[in-house]
């Protein structure tokens, strides 16, 4: 069933296919989603954010629905580095020894990011890190690090120094110029980028006269944001030569190919899980015939299309 045409390679990641669950929507591969199919089918898996200490996250409600989207304000709830190292990652490794794991790293201070990154990379239980400088749902850290190019670059450099595995910096879309941040973290040594995280949004409840989310604002994800994700990925891919894991509203194999056409080398799927728990295997299954339908011979060709498209169209 594994179609060799689906294989892709990124720094630290030799993937049998480009599809992986996005951070925060698949826990540590230990939810009931994992009981529904063999996770070895996945290209890789991105974990929930890991912080130094356990975190309880924000008050509830933390979830709200919008038209073609979801607002979440989880606030990086996670069991903390120790439990991740002693329980979560070993369990994953034992069950799926060949599945590449990307650990999502978060923190409130540079020191925390560095400590988490060092420990995770030294554990040898993950193939790469995803540096989350774009969570819109925490007061300290998160997006604060991802909206200023100098701050983002400094953090990236520090984490790169501490990490023995490649580092993908996860960018925030809540910025005036995403290329500027991308360039700054690339210059600081990022091995790749992960984009996009959620857009800061809000819903108000006329009945209660309060925001629907206890945290007031939350991060908007899902198909609603896909056009923004495609635009940002393409902007960055056209300007900077660095591999990108693309995400934001992907639901189908065609969506994944659109992300790759924009310039992504691999694709993460988040919100779509909430209406189709089997969305990743569904996309992986559908990819070969969708590639045939659109006469895509290789994913590499599609991903490099961006450059051609721009040369052909602009000027």
């Amino acid at each position: 069933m594994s179609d060799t045409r689906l294989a892709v390679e990124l720094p630290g990641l030799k993937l049998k296919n480009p599809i992986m669950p996005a951070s925060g929507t698949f826990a540590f591969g230990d939810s009931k989603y994992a009981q529904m199919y063999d996770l070895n089918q996945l290209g890789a898996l991105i974990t929930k954010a890991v912080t130094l200490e356990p975190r309880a996250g924000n008050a509830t409600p933390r979830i709200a629905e919008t038209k073609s989207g979801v607002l979440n304000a989880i606030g990086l709830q996670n069991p903390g580095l120790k439990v991740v190292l002693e329980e979560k990652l070993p369990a994953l490794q034992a069950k799926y020894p060949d599945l590449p794991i990307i650990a999502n790293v978060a923190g409130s201070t540079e020191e925390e990011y560095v400590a988490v990154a060092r420990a995770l990379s030294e554990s040898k239980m993950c193939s790469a890190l995803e540096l989350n400088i774009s969570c819109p749902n925490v007061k300290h850290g998160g997006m604060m690090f991802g909206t200023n190019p100098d701050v983002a670059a400094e953090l990236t450099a520090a984490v790169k120094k501490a990490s023995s595995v490649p580092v993908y910096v996860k960018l925030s879309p809540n910025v005036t110029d995403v290329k500027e941040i991308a360039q700054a973290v690339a210059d600081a040594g990022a091995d790749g980028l992960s984009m996009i995280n959620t857009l800061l949004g809000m819903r108000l409840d006329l009945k209660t006269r309060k925001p629907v989310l206890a945290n007031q604002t939350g991060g908007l994800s899902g198909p609603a944001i896909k056009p923004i994700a495609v635009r940002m990925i393409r902007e960055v891919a056209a300007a900077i030569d660095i591999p990108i894991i693309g995400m934001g509203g992907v639901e189908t194999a065609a969506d994944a190919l659109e992300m790759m056409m924009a310039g992504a080398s691999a694709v993460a799927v988040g919100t779509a899980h909430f209406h189709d728990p089997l969305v990743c295997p569904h996309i992986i299954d559908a990819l070969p015939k969708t590639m045939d339908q659109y006469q895509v011979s290789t994913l590499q060709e599609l991903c490099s299309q961006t450059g051609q498209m721009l040369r052909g169209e602009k000027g």
Partner: protein
Amino acid sequence: MVNDYEMTISAHRELAPGIWRLELQGDFDYAGALPGTFVEVEMPDEAYQLRRPFAIADCDSERQTLALIYRVVGAGTELMSQLHEGATLKLLGSLGNGFPFADLVPGQRTLLVGGGTGIPPLLYLSKVLHERGIQADIAVGFLNQESMFATDELQQYGNLAITTNDGSVGIKGFVSAVLDNKWHDNPYDRIYACGPLGLLMSVQNRYPDADNVYLSLESRMACGVGACEGCVVPDKQGKLSLRVCVEGPVFNSQEVQLSV
């Protein structure tokens, strides 16, 4: 086994204004479909990103049917109410822990306290308890006579006490009135409650030290399977450590803090 099942609507009728009983037919995780567990129903319109959680209200593994009872409260349930027999729905299930009852033996006594759309899982529980010869006192609360449903079946499975807010049927007031007036001590081997927060709080307050009281909670969910941390509720220390979709929806009254 937890899975995403595509089932066919075999019956769909309005029990009371805005309260529907949906019967679905087909393959399902019947072994896991115990009272207190729930399903996540995919909305039949791609604009909806989230599934909707509903308690299992009945289940028949031989006829291969499952029943849900739901109230139309928003866009999703409105859409559901328009579906006809023969249409299909996708259901992820069964999810959650369910009510603990397997250790009870015939002759033991239980109290079931339910209000509004908290009644469906208790209906299923009372049926199972009845089959096992376990006694049940059942207190259910409704807004008024018009909004009543499921009382005929409940009557078959235990001693039923009804309250209505306007007194049009049974005792006037909230369902907690029954606990205060009628079944005021706790000679029960187990107490189960499901319904609005006010109801759960009054049950928790009524039996503050009892360790045999179980409350079924609701929470906003995204995944329903323990993958997103969306649905957490506070434990007794106030820490948001309990996921309603995995550790719940049923919690021992001693382990969970109810908050608005």
